[in-house]
């Protein structure tokens, strides 16, 4: 079951038909207030939230929701609304789509978030991407069979991204969790270390396939 919070009926119509074609059940809400009530009563597996709703901003919605639920939230937003996106991601939203978006992109994001929700509890001690393998239990990273040496910070950054696979992690979030709160205003540290990880793990570091940049927001790990 997916809850769609969106005020524009035509957008609701095509999102709903696409999701239903995937075999999902869809509940709709036109306002944030209604959306919160629906989220509480219907217990959906995922919320798709439009940021341009007339009755309030998404940050309040997500903060409220996060008080009692970890269910994934996909945000629909306009271009040029970077600051709003960052705030709602910092508040706990998982991913965003910029309007206009294709049905294919939407379904890919929805699948990724639903998969994460289902496998969240499973214990996966080994993660593979590209030619790299990360053994979380033995704290070992290999690429093409050879051991790769990561510094403690690089390793912590990598595992944080892996643990939130598919989710956009903001610069602030990553800096706070890896370096500590005093580093949140030094994003160049994060950028330099992500660069190191790409050099060590990506096949073409200039065109990463797994450690993705979300311009102006943060990073995302895609397995």
């Amino acid at each position, binding site marked *: 079951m997916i809850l769609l919070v969106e005020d524009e009926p*035509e957008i609701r*119509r095509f999102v709903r038909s*696409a999701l239903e*074609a995937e075999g999902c059940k869809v509940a709709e809400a036109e306002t944030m207030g209604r959306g919160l009530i629906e989220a509480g009563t219907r217990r959906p597996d995922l919320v798709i939230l439009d940021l341009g709703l007339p009755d309030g901003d998404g940050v309040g919605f997500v903060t409220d929701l996060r008080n009692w639920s970890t269910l994934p939230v996909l945000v629909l937003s*306009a271009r040029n609304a970077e600051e709003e996106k960052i705030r709602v991601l910092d508040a706990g939203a998982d991913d965003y789509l910029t*309007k206009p978006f294709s049905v294919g992109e939407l379904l890919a994001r929805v699948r990724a978030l639903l998969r994460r929700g289902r496998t969240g509890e499973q214990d996966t001690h080994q993660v593979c991407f590209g030619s790299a393998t990360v053994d979380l239990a033995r704290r070992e990273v290999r690429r093409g069979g050879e051991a790769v040496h990561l510094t403690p910070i690089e390793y912590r950054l990598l595992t944080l991204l892996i643990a939130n696979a598919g989710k956009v992690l903001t610069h602030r979030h990553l800096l706070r969790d890896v370096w500590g709160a005093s580093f949140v205003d030094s*994003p160049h540290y994060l950028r330099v270390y992500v660069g190191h990880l790409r050099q060590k793990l990506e096949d073409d570091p200039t*065109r990463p396939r797994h450690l993705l*940049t979300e311009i102006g927001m943060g990073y995302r790990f895609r397995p």
Partner: protein
Amino acid sequence: MVISDYSHPNWRSYCLTLGLCGLTAVIASPLRNWLDQANTVMLFNLVVVAAAVYLGRGPAILAAFAGVALFDFFFVPPHFTFAVANLQYLVTFAVMLAVGLVISHLAAGLRQEARDARVRESQLKDLYELARCLAGIDSESALVAAVCRFASRHLHARAALFSMDSSNQLQAASGNDLPTTVVDSALARSALASGRPLVPVDDLSGDPPHAFLPLTPGNGPSGVLVLAFTDRPSRELEHLEAYLTALASLVETALQRLRLVEHSHESSLQASAERLRASILSALSHDVRTPLTALYGLADSLALFQPPLPAPARELAAALRNQALRLSRMVDKLLDIARFQSGRLTLRREWQPVEEVIGASLQFLEPALEGHPVDVRLEPGLPLLELDAVLMERVFGNILENAAKYSPPGSPINIEVTRTDGSLTVKVNDQGPGFPPEPEASRLFDLFQRGETEGARPGMGLGLAICRTILEAHGGTISVSTRPEGGGCVTFSLPLGEPPLVEAEPGLMP
């Protein structure tokens, strides 16, 4: 009448003075047996006072001397002769003369002061009238008219107002009372340079004299007020300096006020234009984009329709989707340009490696590149740059989109990043037709300018203008050229700056 009456006592006053003295002598002479000589002296002194008060200093001095002579002739024995029997009378004469002269001096001074005070009062009244009149005017032509009226009524002069234009030439205001040709512009400039009224005294030409009053309102171009006196000898203009200075400062204040009014009117117009722009922007970004999102998504869902549509219908759906996407990109660009042009382009600059921006742009642009392979060559060891990543992505996006649009399908695009002293240079090379030579090449960066040869391709000519705006905001430059081996090349550079230090991890083994 404003100008003080400086006319000098004429011969009539002197005759009158002599007459008065004679009359006094004739009246007092029969009484000399009853009237003490000291009192007779008093009578003569009274004549001096009267002459000083009513006729001026010269007649009073004449009265003092005449008084002494008549006193000697009629009242000092031996009578009816200037001979003096008792030499003590010489003291009387000396004292009488001295007293007469002092009285004439003091009384004439008082008289002059009273006269001056009256003149000043009347001048002040005129200036006050002018100030009241100028406070009510609402245009420069009304100001000129008021000043001309004042000049002709109170100064017997014709007036002209000039303002200094940007090329330092005097421009006559409309409605001047005085033809521009008769005004000596060199004198006007020197008055403006000195900052004080200039009244050329020794005018040898015999023309009526001109006065040049500099006006420096402070909030606009300076100017000069020229007065051409019609019937006044230039010698007297010296006394007018304070008066003319006051006149100039009144006109100056009025000019300043007029310009402030004009300015506030302009800025309120500007503010309402800004409000209109903001509301159009927000309408575009929400009200236009929402239906576009629906259109794009609905067309896209047609492709996934079950059971599948026949092939021609699917093609139509794909065309619909692509057009919606194009329209949406155009709206994005227009919004970008509108946002940048409103002068509020605020950069969110952070230090970052340029390859990250390039990588993210390529990832974001993958669909728009339409299968053109992109080769990225970076000089090793490039420093961090302080960039607004979101806007730099727009730069790469616009350049790569153009490169993909104008070059043959499937041809490679390559990006070269090199470091030259003090800046980072990025070259984007394609296999397209290239760019026209200068000066047309520079014009491509203007809004809505497109290359001539690409008329058939869709687009609005906003991409390069957006690039230039963003790069210039970063302190960079952009240019286009055609490579000798063929193909277009867009080159831009960004200043390097001093990147912050990234400290090594503590306790890390090298």
